[in-house]
C-alpha cells in the first residue's frame, strides 16, 4: 500500500522529485491532455516495471540499460500506434484530435526519466507484485500532477474544465501559452511544499 500511495504526495514525480518536467510543461494546456498523457505514461511504466521485474535477473549488468530502453521503447511505440488508431478523431468543429494535441510528447515518453528511473531503482530489485504496484502508484501520481496542472491552466486561461466552458470570455491567456506552464507549475510546487511541511 505504501508503494502505491507514495507516488501521489511523498514521492510525487512532478511536485517532489521534479522528474519528467518536459511532458509536464508541454502537455498540460488542458486537463484532458494532461490526463491522457498521464495515463499513457502509467501504461508504459506499469508494463516496463512488470517485464523488468520478471526478466531483470536474466539480463547481464553491462547490457542492463540498453535492454531496459528497448523494452520501454517497445511499449511507447505500442501506445503511439494505439493512440493514432483510436484517439485520432477531430472534434465536431475541427478541433485537433487528442493524438494531434499530444503530438511528439507520446514518442518522447521513452526518454522520460521517471520510466527508466523506476526500472533501474525499483523494478530491477523488487518482486513482480511490488513493482506493479510501484508502477501504478508513480504513474497515477504523475497523471494526478498533470491533471491538476492542466486543470489550473485550463481554468485560468480558458475558463473551462475538461472542455466544459463555464466562464464566458477569454481568460488569462498567458496560462494556456508556454510561459503559463512555468508560472502555474511554480505556484503549485509552492503550495505543495507548504502542505508537505505540515504533514512531515
Amino acid at each position, binding site marked *: 500500500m505504501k508503494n502505491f500511495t507514495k507516488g501521489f504526495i511523498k514521492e510525487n514525480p512532478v511536485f517532489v522529485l521534479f522528474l519528467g518536467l518536459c511532458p509536464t510543461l508541454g502537455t498540460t494546456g488542458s486537463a484532458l491532455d494532461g490526463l491522457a498523457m498521464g495515463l499513457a505514461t502509467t501504461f508504459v511504466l506499469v508494463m516496463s516495471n512488470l517485464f523488468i521485474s520478471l526478466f531483470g*535477473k*536474466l*539480463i*547481464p*549488468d*553491462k*547490457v542492463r540499460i*540498453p*535492454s531496459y530502453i*528497448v*523494452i520501454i*521503447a*517497445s511499449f511507447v*511505440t*505500442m501506445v503511439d*500506434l*494505439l493512440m*493514432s*488508431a*483510436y484517439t*485520432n*478523431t*477531430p472534434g465536431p*468543429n*475541427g*478541433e485537433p*484530435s487528442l493524438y494531434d494535441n499530444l503530438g511528439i510528447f507520446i514518442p518522447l515518453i521513452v526518454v522520460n526519466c521517471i520510466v527508466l528511473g523506476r526500472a533501474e531503482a525499483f523494478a530491477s530489485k523488487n518482486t513482480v507484485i511490488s513493482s506493479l504496484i510501484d508502477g501504478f502508484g508513480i504513474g497515477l501520481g504523475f497523471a494526478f500532477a498533470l491533471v491538476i496542472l492542466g486543470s489550473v491552466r485550463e481554468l485560468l*486561461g480558458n475558463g473551462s474544465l475538461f472542455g466544459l466552458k463555464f466562464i464566458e470570455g*477569454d481568460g488569462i*491567456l498567458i496560462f*494556456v*501559452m508556454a510561459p503559463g506552464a512555468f508560472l502555474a507549475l511554480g505556484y503549485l510546487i509552492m503550495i505543495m511544499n507548504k502542505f508537505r511541511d505540515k504533514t512531515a
Partner: protein
Amino acid sequence: MAKKESTFGSMVVTLFLVTLASSAALGFVYELTRVPIANAKAAKKNLAIKRVTPEFDNQPGEECYKVPAGGDTIYFYIARKGDDTVGYAAETFSNQAFGGSLKLLVGFLPDGTIKETAVLEHRETPGLGDKMVKSKSDWSRQFEGKNPDEFLLKVKKDGGDVDAITASTITSRAYCDALQRAYESFKEGDKQ
C-alpha cells in the same frame, strides 16, 4: 536465482532475445492497428473536406490533384455527388503568418466561389490571431460566398475588401495570402 555474468556470449544472447521479442510484439501491434490507423486518417481528411465543400458522396481524400505554387504544392480534393462535381477542397498555406506558417483548407464551388474555409494548422497568438479559427469568432465567415474575381483578397488597409482582425493584421494578411494562392492555383488547375 543468481545474477547473470556479463560475458560476451551472455550479453549478445540477451540483447538478441530482447530485441527479437520487442520486434515481434511491435510487429503484432502494428498489424493489429494498421487498418484502424489508415481508417482514422482517411476519416479525418474526409471530415475536414466535408466542412468546406457542399455535400458529397464520394471519397475526396482519394481523388486528388496537385498544383505547384509558391515553392510548395497545393492539393485539390474533388467532391462529387453522383456524376456531378460539386466542389473542390484546396489544402493551401501561407508562410507570412505571425507564427510562421499557416495551413488552410478552402472549399471552392466549380465556378470559383469560396464556399467555406477552415484552419488546419496554425501557430498564431491565442486570443488575437487565433480569432481566424471558426470556433473562436465569425471573422472567417466574411469569405463565404465571395468570388475572388470580384472580392479582392487583401485587407482594407492594403486596398482590398477584407476586414482585418483587430490587432492581428499580419494574421489576416496571411489568411488572404493563403486564399489568394489557392484561388490562383485553382484557376491554373482549371486550364490543365
